[in-house]
């Protein structure tokens, strides 16, 4: 955005009494190619474009967005937002200088805009063939690849003026195994920051086999008998439970609404001493990594829980000021259509000391949740629910066969103290996280870990 135009809009916001004014301009080119059941089901591309204007009056947020980036349109939006408000005194802005580029992702990447859909199709066909080669019970295969290349500019009344060039690419492979009237689906969905330089390194044959073999195993599985039991959570995507049940309540967006069981507990022991949890936006090309957050602040590594002690919260500008913690570079939003709030980036439980075998051996009767499916949480009450995509019964310290139909429910703050063993086999996995500022890419992660008791839903 032209800095002169930006300055006029920011100044109008200050003239209307806003303590802080920010512009967020975004242009995103995205494309998707889906190869399903041996044909291209969908080839699509689009351009998203718009500008968001945010005015802060203390902790009160006024936000507007539009696809019309003309000066008149943006000035009108500021007037609409600030209707009836005036400044007590002269509020000046620090005029934005030229916009500073903070990321060079585009210059390093294999650009999806240049590669075209033909290149991607060959890759998807390999995944389809590999999945089908596992068994004739694999009756459906869907492989899609989504890429998005974004140019973001953030200019605010404090003189910040940055341009961030972002790119993300994600593969989604889903298979359905069928036997008689039974149908079971399993999926793999790795995602990365960057273009096709990371996709080229993916072993799509191995991913396809992994999903297919999992679906085939579950197809033969009996239902688990539900009840309270010890659960060993698998590494990688098992971290989704921490993300949902504990991560969201550790965001200032929940804390400032008094909608978190962790309100006022910084410095308290909230988890077993074996638990250290981190949210880190700086980790290379991980799916949830950023150079700057959507408020223009450089991201950082944030230790949330250290040896069971709550250290801080994840914060955006408004949340940090209201809750009284430092900003952590966690202000995020799906697009210009959302005001930023505190959100997770790459969130994980750090590796511990326990071996996977010792965890299994310590359980008399329980569940090994090898692969989690999705889940959700109500931060205000802490109540969560998660489906287990692939589970194994544990009996007398040994894995005793695959089971299906397991669901985990409980309250996050009650589960944290029940984590008694943390493994060494750390892994991460990509996911999408939905909340008040939209759906954003995040990474979850953990080593295998043992929860002493949790309610497992199943059949009685």
């Amino acid at each position, binding site marked *: 955005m032209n800095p002169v135009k930006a300055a006029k809009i920011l100044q109008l916001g200050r003239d209307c009494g806003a303590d802080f004014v920010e512009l967020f301009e975004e242009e995103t080119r995205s*494309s998707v190619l889906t190869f399903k059941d041996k044909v291209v089901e969908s*080839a699509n591309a689009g*351009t998203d474009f718009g500008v968001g204007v945010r005015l802060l009056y203390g902790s009160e947020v006024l936000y507007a967005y539009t*696809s*019309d980036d003309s000066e008149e349109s943006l000035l009108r939006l500021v007037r609409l937002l600030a209707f009836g408000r005036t400044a007590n005194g002269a509020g000046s802005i620090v005029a934005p200088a030229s916009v500073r580029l903070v990321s060079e992702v585009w210059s390093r990447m294999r650009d999806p805009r240049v590669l075209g*859909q033909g290149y991607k199709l060959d890759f998807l066909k390999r995944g389809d063939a590999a999945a089908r080669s596992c068994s004739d019970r694999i009756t459906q295969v869907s492989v899609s690849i989504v890429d998005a290349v974004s140019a973001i500019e953030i200019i605010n009344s404090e003189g910040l003026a940055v341009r961030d060039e972002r790119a993300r690419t994600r593969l989604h492979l889903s298979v359905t195994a069928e036997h008689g009237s039974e149908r079971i689906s399993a999926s793999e969905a790795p995602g990365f920051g960057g273009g096709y330089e990371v996709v080229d390194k993916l072993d799509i044959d191995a991913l396809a086999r992994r999903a297919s073999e999992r679906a085939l195993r579950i197809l033969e599985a009996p239902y688990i008998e539900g009840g309270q039991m010890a659960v060993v959570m698998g590494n990688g995507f098992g971290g989704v439970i921490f993300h949902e049940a504990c991560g969201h309540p550790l965001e200032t967006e929940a804390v400032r609404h008094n*909608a978190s069981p962790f309100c006022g507990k910084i410095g308290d022991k909230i988890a077993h001493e074996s638990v250290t949890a981190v949210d880190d936006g700086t980790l290379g090309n991980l799916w949830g990594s950023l150079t700057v957050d959507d408020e223009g602040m450089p991201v950082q590594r944030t230790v949330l829980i250290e040896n069971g002690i709550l250290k801080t919260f994840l914060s955006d500008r408004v949340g940090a000021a209201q809750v009284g913690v430092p900003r952590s570079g966690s202000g995020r939003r799906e697009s210009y259509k959302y005001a930023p709030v505190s959100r997770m980036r790459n969130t994980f439980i750090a590796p511990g000391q326990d071996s996977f075998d010792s965890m299994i051996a310590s359980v008399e009767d329980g569940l090994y949740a090898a692969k989690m499916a999705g889940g959700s949480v109500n931060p205000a*009450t802490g109540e969560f629910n998660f489906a287990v995509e692939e589970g194994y019964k544990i009996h007398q310290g040994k894995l005793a066969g695959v089971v299906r139909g397991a669901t985990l429910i409980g309250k996050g703050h009650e589960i944290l103290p029940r984590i008694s063993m943390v493994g060494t086999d750390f892994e991460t996995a990509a996911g999408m996280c939905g909340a008040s500022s939209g759906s954003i890419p995040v990474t979850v992660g953990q080593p295998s870990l043992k929860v002493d008791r949790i309610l497992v839903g199943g059949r009685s």
Partner: protein
Amino acid sequence: MSQEQQASQGKQVAEAMAFLQNEARSSAADAFDLVGRHSSSLSLNVFQGKVQQTEISESVGIGIRVFHNGAPGYASTERLTPESLRQTLKDALSHCAFTEPLKVVLPEPSALVEAPSQWNADLEALSLAQMAEFSLALEAAAYARSSEIENIPHLGYGLSEDRSWFANSRGISYQERENSYGVGIGAVALRNGVRKMGTYQKTGRVHQDAVVATMAQIAVERSLELLDARPIAGCELPVVFSNRVSGSIIGMFLSNLHAESVQKGQSRFAGQLGKIVASPLFNLISDPFRWDLPGASVLDSEGVPTQRIELIAEGGLRSFLHNLETAGREGCAPTGNGSRGYSGRVGTTFHNCIVPPGTQSEDELLHMFPRCLHIVKLDGSSGCSAISGEISIGVQGFLYENGVCVQAVDGITISTNFFEMLKQIVAISSEYNDSFSSVKIPAFAVERVSVSG
């Protein structure tokens, strides 16, 4: 947004649609259709006696589908400049090289059912100040109803206006507009260290239907009713799904009635046309002419006239829902159930999914069994699979014995299979919930469900 501003932005979309049509006509496309949209909204949230967030939005977008040698290609843009529109057409045409040819004939203009307006001019006058006044009164009323209300983290009011355009290469050109309001509250109650949230929302086209006292009462009652809940032992029980959750539980499996799911082998209803798939009490209809509901429409988003469709009648499977592409694959007529936003490919939708009511009240359903579980809250949906039909999900509600509530229940899960459950429906109530929703399903009772606690 003022009428003048809306007219101005609407004009931009209409002009961009005309530009793109002209470009498409002179391109390699054999046929094409376009969807355009202009959306605007006003909304605010309140917290602890203050307006905490205010939002104003306006956005536009155009999507195009072109056919070249019968193969479809899609693209979209939110930039309405000539360069961006030309790039969008170029992208769409390039995608035709990858997709399979379809036997799709785009519809021509035809006589349509006369539809009442889905625009309430009264809503145009609803201001942020009025929304704030209502919301602050609602917050105060909710706190005043019970000293156990600890927090109200969710309380918001919004107004949305949408104008959409459709045009195709065979001469159809129409536009429609609709507006609606929504106000919702989530109140948290605290007792003995246990927190429960009760939610209630009112949406529709007549904002006077939202009444502070009523909304506060319902939200607070819902937050208090489960505070003393505790698990029950694992067992098999009859279950009554309240009309608060009946739409959610059935709604998760509706894609099984989309022809696209059937064609892709992702529907357990494949090959079941004419067969019994549900209890004889169960009927399911797509009704585009229920003008009181948000799914009403005379044309679908591919320009095909809509129709009322009986999908399940007395438990028998009668039909599937088609868009132009699925009908083309099967060589049958489309049913007018195409669905498409500007940025995506065509999908399938119900135009109001309705299960006709039974004759008994929800309370009478609870008297049907010596012991049953009344489910009023679902804990998420991640344990449900539309493909396998599996339902393994946390629930909250009440245990009833001989029609009397004996215990509030939480910390349990139910496990069943949707397709088995449909056949085990033993009663459907006469009462819908009061939501302005395109899914209207009364409470229903199921003979037996597995419970873990």
